């Protein structure tokens, strides 16, 4: 964050009878690494690969645990009626409570409780029917009350599991499925933001984010490398987005990940852990963790000791129960709620469970079953934002089978998108355009190699249809038998050795001749026809 790039101003903080300095974070977003998609396939490090040696089975391995702060998607904050919005004018979303005016009290937002319960259920957690709020004290300018209200003693959900997968194997096309234990999910307040303006020697504070509801998810140290951690976070992100409990944009700070990293020899106690904090993308998470593992391995191999350096100054003076909030009760059924409380004021487990949407895992299973595609195909479809919808839209409008479509979508389309750092929604080729193209191929109007060529054209000039491109560039299939006969004869005549080999029984060489024919015809010749002519001429 470069202070110089942020406009700085002074504004009368609404509803607070004192001027406080604020800053305009207009450029801030773009100074961050804007990578929302977690791309596990390009991680520079492979799980354990860099530290495992076949000759020494008891080598040092990484141990990674995560703390994830997920901003709850809600209209208002956790304990006040202020709106929750990203990039609103500074200090425009601040209630008396958010500014910690004396005498104000927290009032729990039911939506936030529901979101936490829903998230807990989706992660197979035990939902505590009674949970408690605590104050966690520390002095910080963007924490106006001097404490954060959180759930330290008894969180709303505990003991869950997050099952995640990543692509592994030498060709990185094998689906590896693992799981990490969720220790707890706790409700807590977000802090404000402070910016230190060194030039003017000021600290500027924006309280818009102060008091926004967070779910803190604590994952046990069941992971061993950056790739696993990134894959687990990506799966969590997909689950939260499916549930609608968190928008999950890491670049907007809606999902923030801190990692605890240590190394040890399997079987030994864990080593000293360090913290990798404030990571704003999955790719950076994987890199930062792997870097830290390597650093620790290096330190230990050189006879040094790992030091926990991130907590040089601990401002926390401890916890105490939040006296202004009664215990939070979640009821099993509507009938178990007390009659004096209005139904709109209670959270009922049965109702939240009934409202659970299709989760990513179920979605992948459904895709595999209904389209007869491979699990790793479904993994890619679900992990890329919008790709499933794209795929299904193409399948719906084309005669080509889903297994054919999946190749186009997962390889051709996604390859180009990645190459140009675009999201699926930014693709210049719409599902309809791709479907038309595939139909032309299915109808035998173009060959598969031409189809790929046309796809490139569509990408470059999205205003045109596939049909137009084919006509303009004369890419239609050549089924003129005489012409194909002539070209085949030319190829056979100029490659006597290969013809000899085919005649000797090596039928595979025929493919080479076919390729040469297609080269001559710019891929437009009907391959079935070419094959039969070549077979005839080489028999």
């Amino acid at each position, binding site marked *: 964050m470069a202070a110089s790039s942020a406009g700085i101003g002074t504004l009368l903080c609404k509803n607070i009878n004192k001027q406080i300095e604020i800053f305009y974070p207009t450029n801030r977003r773009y100074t961050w690494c804007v990578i929302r998609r977690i791309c596990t396939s390009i991680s520079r490090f492979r799980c354990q690969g860099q530290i495992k040696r076949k000759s020494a089975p008891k080598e040092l391995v990484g141990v990674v645990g995560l703390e994830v702060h997920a901003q709850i998607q809600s209209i208002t904050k956790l304990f006040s009626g202020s709106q929750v919005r990203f990039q609103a004018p500074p200090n425009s979303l601040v209630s008396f409570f958010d500014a910690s*005016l004396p005498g104000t009290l927290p009032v729990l937002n039911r939506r936030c409780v529901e979101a936490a319960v829903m998230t807990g259920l989706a992660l197979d957690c035990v939902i505590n029917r009674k949970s408690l709020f605590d104050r966690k004290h520390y002095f910080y300018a963007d924490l106006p009350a001097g404490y954060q209200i959180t759930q330290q003693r008894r969180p709303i959900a505990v003991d869950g599991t997050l099952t995640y997968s990543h692509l592994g194997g030498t060709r990185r096309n094998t689906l590896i499925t693992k799981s990490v234990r969720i220790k707890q999910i706790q409700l807590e307040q977000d802090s404000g933001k402070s910016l230190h303006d060194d030039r003017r020697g000021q600290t500027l504070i924006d309280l818009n984010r102060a008091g926004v509801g967070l779910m803190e998810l604590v994952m046990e140290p069941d992971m061993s490398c950056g790739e696993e951690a990134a894959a687990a976070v990506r799966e969590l992100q997909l689950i939260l987005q499916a549930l609608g409990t968190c928008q999950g944009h890491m670049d907007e700070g809606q999902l923030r990940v801190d990692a605890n990293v240590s190394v040890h020899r399997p079987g030994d106690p864990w080593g000293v852990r360090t913290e990798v904090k404030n990571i704003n993308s999955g790719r950076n998470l994987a890199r930062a963790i792997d870097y830290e593992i390597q650093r620790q391995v290096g330190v230990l191999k050189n006879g040094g000791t790992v030091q926990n350096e991130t907590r040089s100054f601990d401002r926390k*003076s401890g916890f105490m129960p939040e006296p202004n909030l009664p215990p939070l009760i979640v009821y099993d059924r509507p009938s178990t709620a007390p009659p004096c*409380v209005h139904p709109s004021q209670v959270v009922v487990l049965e109702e939240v469970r009934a409202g659970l949407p299709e989760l990513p895992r179920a979605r992948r299973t459904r895709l595999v079953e209904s389209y007869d595609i491979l699990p790793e195909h479904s993994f890619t479809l679900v992990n890329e934002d919008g790709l499933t919808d794209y795929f299904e839209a193409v399948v719906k409008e084309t005669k080509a089978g889903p297994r054919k479509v999946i190749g186009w979508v997962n390889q051709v389309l996604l390859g180009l998108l990645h190459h140009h750092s675009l999201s699926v929604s930014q693709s210049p080729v719409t599902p309809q355009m791709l479907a038309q193209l595939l139909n032309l191929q299915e109808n035998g109007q173009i060959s598969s190699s031409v189809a790929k060529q046309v796809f490139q054209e569509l990408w470059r000039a999205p205003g045109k249809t596939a049909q137009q491109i084919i006509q303009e560039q004369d890419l239609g299939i050549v089924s003129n038998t005489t012409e194909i006969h002539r070209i085949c004869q030319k190829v056979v005549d100029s490659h006597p050795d290969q013809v000899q080999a085919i005649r000797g029984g090596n039928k595979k060489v025929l493919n080479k001749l076919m390729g040469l024919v297609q080269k001559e015809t710019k891929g437009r010749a009907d391959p079935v026809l070419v094959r039969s002519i070549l077979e005839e001429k080489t028999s």
Partner: protein
Amino acid sequence: FIQRLLRIEVSLALKEGRISPTELCRKCLNRIKKTHHLNAYITVSEELALKQAHEAESRLSKGVSKGPLDGIPFAVKDNFCTENIKTTCASNMLKDYTPPYNATVVQKLLDQGAVLMGKTNLDEFAMGSGSTDSAFGPVRNPWSYEAAYREKSGADPDADWVIAGGSSGGSAAAVASLTSFFSLGSDTGGSTRNPGALCGVVALKPTYGLVSRHGLIPLVNSMDVPGIITRSVHDAATVLGVLQGHDVKDSTTVTDHPTPLTGLPDDFDPRNIRVGIPKEYHGPGLSQETLAQWSRVADMFEQAGFQVEQVSLPHTQHSIVCYHVLCHAEVASNMARFDGLEYGHRSDVSSSTEAMYAATRHGGFNDVVRGRILSGNYFLLKQNYEHYFVKAQQVRRLINEDFRRVFGSGVDVLLTPTTLSDAMRHTDFVQEDNRTRSAQEDIFTQPANMAGLPAVSVPTALSSRGLPIGLQLIGPAFQDRSLLTVAQWIEQKVGFAPIRYHGDAGEGEIRVDVLPSTPTVWEKNYLIPC
């Protein structure tokens, strides 16, 4: 023209047009000026009061009263937020702080047409039991200037005045000196009842959760309750009737609809009521005169047919120590927000944010507050938490259990002293430090806060020094009405005479004859256990 005004009578007089709200407001404002030496008020909201009185007057002239409090002057302890009126907590930290909102209790009173006269003095952030530790100077007990005390002490009252008690000393003095007809205090360890007893007025601490704390600048959130100070039990019931009930802004208020407090029954059968006398309250330091009053009222009960019995609250003796741990811990937490950033005093020191915090908090808080923050943070340290805070909470549960057992056995109400003795001379009181004083003065009142129970102090007599003595009644949770019913019985039997003001010639005192209370629907035998 000697007046002994109960609020309800003024209300009636207003309704009948015998006195106008504006006239009444002016008289109270005059009295505030005349009793300026008491230092009961930090802020007098004269302009607003006259405006509200004028509005009440136009309502009453049209015959559209908002209720029994319409046009009635009242005062509010300066730790309740009042919109556009300074709220200082008697601290330099907030000496120029004007809140942008009204506390729920203040808003409810304003909605009823009550006329706010001003904000009353207190110990800084309500930490104290004498109203002597205020950034605006100590409160003087109005009884210091009464003939009974002056004749007996023989000293100049300006040199030898007695304390008002605290921390709501200003609110008690305001009502005792008739500058307001009722006032709001806050009660965390006895802060409403203690000054109520020392100033000879009725002081009610309702059940925790019955009255909203929203807008009350907290001392100890789990024990704070807005208190009501009046000149009669009946008035206390009327004000409680307005204030009680669920507030969406305070999640600790009960959602059940509370019993209406339209009137207190006075024809119940005493034989159905069991009065407990806790033996542990007969402890060292209890003055002979207060003990005598305690016995006198217990005897009155017995003679009237109440079942009076000795009970035991064995853990009461630990209440004060336990209170100090919990109180200081919550104080440390609650005071953390006063860092000079968003509001309040801010030091000029700007070498670093930490240096600014330190200088701000050093300059903004007095020694008492800083001392409690220091010890509170010590109790909250990770390594100390189990030893102090958790232990104190366990003891708190034992204290609760004592009360539950006694009330569970069928006892309806407990009778105890409110304070050890009558009011001390200021010069004697300040010999000891605040902590020692609070430990001594809160001893009888504090356990009710620990357990969240309703308690009321009722004046019973003047001591040989000519100063009031009060007794306390403690009831089971949410039995505030029953508690007040018994308190009213005491009030009627003891015949305590509040301060009367002699009208100066030409000034014109409030000319209202003492009238019988308005007829209300009495519920018979309300207290009979089912």
